[in-house]
């Protein structure tokens, strides 16, 4: 995904850019609103991450301006303020969601997915590989003649895999993507979910292959 990060705190911005790049996302960083407007005018983003306290103005005014110019790019507000203080107004101004700093990137990913699902953008909603089709919005997997409703963790694991077919994901990386840090999980948990997904995919032309010592990948046979 292509992100625009609007954040004036340089250390934080650098860290966020680095962190998102690790997951294969492309991130542009704007340190102030003026730069941000330039970016938005020239580039199309999948998601804007917007800090509200900026040197040359309030994030909410940027949001208002954005929506006035018919730019409907999904926006998640990053705020350091207390949750109860001003989130309502931000949502009223057209933000799709908000997160309180510090950012839990697993949560950010989940929220991005939720926002995109809500937007119902068909492009990112239905993915296909070989004979299978996957509707990320509803979590339904069409494999062969069957429609399978995936459960939360299966769904998330499958989402990660199908978004990058052929790419090898290590067990620790998958744990990081699927579980938050306060959960005490072992890497064996990944094996359980992989086993379930394999059962769903049995009989189709797509399998999850184990790459010994490295991890898992999704591929067409």
């Amino acid at each position: 995904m292509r992100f625009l990060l609007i954040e004036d705190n340089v250390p934080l911005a650098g860290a966020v850019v680095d962190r998102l790049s690790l997951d294969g996302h492309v991130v542009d960083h704007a340190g102030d609103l003026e730069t941000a407007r330039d970016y938005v005018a020239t580039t199309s983003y999948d998601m804007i991450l917007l800090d509200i306290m900026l040197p040359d103005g309030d994030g909410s005014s940027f949001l208002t301006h954005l929506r006035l110019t018919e730019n409907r790019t999904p926006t998640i507000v990053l705020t350091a303020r207390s949750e109860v203080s001003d989130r309502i107004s931000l949502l009223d101004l057209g933000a799709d969601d908000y997160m309180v700093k510090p950012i839990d990137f697993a949560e950010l990913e989940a929220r991005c997915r939720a926002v995109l699902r809500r937007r119902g953008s068909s492009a990112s909603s239905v993915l296909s590989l070989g004979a299978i089709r996957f509707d990320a919005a509803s979590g339904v997997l069409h494999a062969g003649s069957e429609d399978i409703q995936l459960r939360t963790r299966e769904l998330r694991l499958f989402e990660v895999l199908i978004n990058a077919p052929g790419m090898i994901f290590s067990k620790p990386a998958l744990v990081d993507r699927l579980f938050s840090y306060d959960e005490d999980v072992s890497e064996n948990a990944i094996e359980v979910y992989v086993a379930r997904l394999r059962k769903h995919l049995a009989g189709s032309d797509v399998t999850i292959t184990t790459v010994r010592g490295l991890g898992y990948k999704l591929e067409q046979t």
Partner: protein
Amino acid sequence: MTAPVVQGSIRRRLLLLQLCASVLLAVLVYFLVQSVARQVAQQSQDNILTASALSVIDSARIVDGSVMVDLPYAALSMLDSITDERVFYAVRLGDELVTGYADLPRPPRGAARGSAQLSAEFLGEAVRIAAVTRPFATDLGRNVLEVSVAQTLSGQRQTLAWTSRLSLAVGAGFFALTVVLALLIARATIQPLDRLTASVSRRGPTDLRPVNAPVPQEMARLVTSLNGFMARLEASLNRSEDFIAEAAHRVRTPLAVVRTKAEIIQRHIHKPENRKAMTEMIEAIDESSRTAGQLLDHAMVSFRLDSLPRDRVDLQALMIDAVERIRPVAEIAGMRLAVGRSEPATILGDAILLQSAVRNLLDNAIKYSPAETRIEISLRQASDGIRLTVADGGPGFPPRGDTAQSSASNVQSGDNHAPPGASDVLTERFTRGSNAAGVVGSGLGLTIVQDVVTAHGGRLILDNTPGGGACACLFFPSS
């Protein structure tokens, strides 16, 4: 908020004073009218009697050297024209009776223009006597001819009865009029005060603009003080709000940098023991940021509770919104959020605080439930009140006695099988259930929930479901 100590009422006092004055004036008017009417009645009776006496004295002649009086018929019949009156007369020359009633009392002489009046008792009845005199020359020399005419008082009594009724009516009418006027005056006098009160109480709790509407001179100082007070309050409130926001920013931004960097580093570590250390570090960061967040939230909640607005809040919409917002977090935790019964319900209160309460409940449910379990949220509007319930598949609330102490609280336990007292202790600040070890949480969440619910006149009911999970319920009794 403490209710003011009310003693007396300006309107009542004003009314009372004016009514006292009205009563006084009405009584005065009553007596005044009556006395004037009495005087007029007396005067007119005197006039008629005098006229009668004059007509008698005019008929006096000297015939053959002695006084003859040819009593005019009208002289007596005129005295009986409206009401039946007994009539008496006496004609005297000097002290000698010429004709008439010898015993008729004589009014003292010397009044102006030769007429004199007297009220007396004669032949068993009260009478009014008028006398006129005229010098008269007879063969025996000059003497004074005096004619007295008397009349009983039934006509005057009738007149007085009538004037008495009239003056009573005038007094009563005067009183009624002044009562109406007093009401109007009291209202008009109080009106600026009422207007000021209305304009101040119409404002929302956060509207601290100065009062600009013109007020009467007497209230100017009050309004000046009020405006000054509100300005100070607003400044103070702004400072508090700014402080909280600033504190949050100052704390969270560095934490965010550290956490992000930690995650990045985590990605590059492959040794399991190092990964574990890094995971613990991230956990610690999360805990401290969460604690900071809840502390600030609690400050903000306390701050907002001081001036709780009373807006109509759609609880159903609020609940669904909160569920949708937390759904991604639940997904990460591998939990399913299910909205069970959801009935339309509204209460009066602060939407942001209520939202915060619901979110904290949901947060807790997610935090303390094992993965792959189901959290059910329901909203029911019953006759006794509204229940917003969050039930999870976690370990439930700890049995009584696990935690150190309990204190009085509005929270109450539900069914008998629930550990009584558990909820008391759970909502104490910084207390966490003994079986919640290993889960990030500051324990402030339920405190916030309870504060909010209590401020809205409701109760937080903590209970365990029959299946063993915890069940938290926001109960707002219908009042």
